[in-house]
């Protein structure tokens, strides 16, 4: 009975993504999609992958990190350097997936290198240390020759497109939701809920923390590779702490531990500043106001009762409560 609920919940999430994908695909095929929309699809997809993977650390493991952009950057550079090297030798169908895997694995390695020492830290201290690591990585990339330094890395084949991103999103969703609903996922959540109790049950805290960290880093790395293949230039400056914060904003807005929320919030946070382009000078101001308003609506108890009545989600909750009441009765 419980399993079914869970499966249905996940299927709805997958369904939303597939439906959105089909909807947009139809728009594109019928020529109704604006160029702007088409250009936004890959960045939106990337943010979905990044947010869902970061949610594993922030939402499920319950640790705050500000270094996700750092993992994205090492993945991007590793994957793109590989792709440039083998651009002529391997066909795209082999090279691109291989580049993604390489980028993901390199990010994993960094996840381990960084995770082993820092995961002893907690809360804001962990946040600042991961931020520091992200900035160190960026600083080193700028100073290296083979990464192109400040001028950026050029010549990555532009293989990214909406369809590939969709496939990777689906893989990310399935892997992360399945992980969360498995033995390892339960252990990760138990660390969030009560570390001491988890230890008392013999759960290896360090191992599971690192596991969450490394899996999240993998997907960040893959997202980096896709990012690198979407533009003809890869510059380290985009991977600064503001990028990490942007992903964190998505996760928090979507709801910590809610994968579906991350997906939806990724669309909103990526699309919002783009939609506000017509406001010209007032764009970032309005963006800031909307961001604050959304956080207040989300987090403030004052608005709770309105939320319950005024939206679809609230309706669902209401129906479900009735149903479970009936079952209990």
């Amino acid at each position, binding site marked *: 009975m419980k399993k079914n609920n869970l499966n249905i919940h996940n299927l709805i999430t997958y369904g939303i993504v597939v439906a959105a994908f089909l909807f947009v695909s139809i728009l594109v095929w019928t020529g109704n999609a604006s160029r702007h929309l088409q250009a936004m699809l890959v960045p939106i997809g990337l943010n979905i992958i990044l947010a869902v993977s970061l949610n594993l650390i922030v939402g499920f493991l319950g640790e705050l990190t500000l270094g996700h952009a750092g993992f994205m950057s090492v993945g991007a550079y590793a994957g793109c350097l590989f792709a440039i090297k083998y651009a002529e030798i391997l066909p795209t169908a082999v090279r691109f997936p291989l580049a993604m895997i390489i980028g993901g694995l390199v990010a994993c390695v960094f996840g381990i290198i960084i995770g082993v020492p820092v995961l002893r830290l907690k809360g804001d201290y962990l946040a600042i240390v991961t931020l520091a690591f992200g900035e160190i990585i960026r600083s080193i990339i700028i100073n290296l020759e083979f990464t192109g330094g400040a001028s950026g890395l050029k010549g990555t084949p532009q293989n990214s497109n909406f369809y590939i991103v969709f496939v990777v999103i689906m893989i990310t969703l399935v*892997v992360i939701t399945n992980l969360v609903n498995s*033995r390892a996922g*339960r252990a990760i959540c138990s660390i969030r809920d*009560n570390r001491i109790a988890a230890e008392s*049950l013999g759960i290896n805290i360090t191992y599971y923390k690192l596991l969450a960290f490394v899996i999240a880093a993998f997907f960040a790395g893959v997202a980096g590779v896709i990012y690198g293949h979407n533009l003809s230039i890869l510059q380290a400056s985009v991977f600064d702490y503001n990028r990490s914060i942007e992903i964190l904003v998505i996760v928090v807005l979507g709801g910590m531990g809610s994968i579906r929320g991350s997906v939806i919030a990724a669309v909103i946070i990526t699309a919002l500043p783009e939609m506000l382009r017509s406001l010209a000078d007032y764009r970032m101001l309005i963006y800031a106001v909307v961001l604050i308003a959304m956080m207040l609506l989300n987090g403030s108890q004052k608005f709770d009762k309105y939320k319950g009545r005024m939206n679809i989600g609230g309706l669902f909750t209401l129906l479900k409560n009735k149903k479970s009441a009936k079952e209990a009765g």
Partner: protein
Amino acid sequence: MALLEIKNLGISFGGLHAVDNFNASVEKGCLYGLIGPNGAGKTTVFNMVTGVYKPTCGTIHLDGKNLTGKNSIQINKQGIARTFQNIRLFSNMSVLDNVKLGLQNQIKYSVAQGIFHSRSYKRKEKEMDEKAISILKVFGLENEYNYLASNLPYGKQRKLEIARALATTPKLLLLDEPAAGMNPNETGELMDTIRFVRDEFDMTILLIEHDMKLVAGICERISVLNFGTELASGKTEQVLNDPRVITAYLGE
């Protein structure tokens, strides 16, 4: 030989001797009580036995194996499980998941099998569900399996914590004030449950409790701690009638 052997156990925090020279020997299958006034160091003993604190001196042996200085995770794997004075459930997870976390090291499959939801994942998960439900049934919680742990009433949360500890199939179960906050009815029920657990699972239980009715009702042997030192220990009736113990509790 006793299941749990504690010898000369002591710990000091910055010069303060929280526990000093504590000895206990808990036989297999025994229901052993640890009592004493507030601040006597009872929970500190638990924390040392379960590896939360490292003792400054003394030894702890379980079944002949030296556990002194091991961490909580290793100690649980050696067969000691516990509950906490201030309930520590995984409050955002379901009742069932709480118990399944206790089964974490009993029923295993790899991370990859979990990610791909392989056949072995499905089989093992089913096995876990069944096992967890059977444990929940002991505590009468099987109907609430899908509730969030934090939504359970207080008494049931205490029971769930015991159920979760039991799921790790320990040799020794440590209960830190299991009856705290319960009404007399619930306490009575809990006493039955503890006895049942002992008999059904062939369990050795060490418990801290302030409720003398419970202690006198189920404990076969007890130790009394006062100001970090052992005041008395032995058979329950003897100890409870010991004038030193009465003084310690009631004052002079």
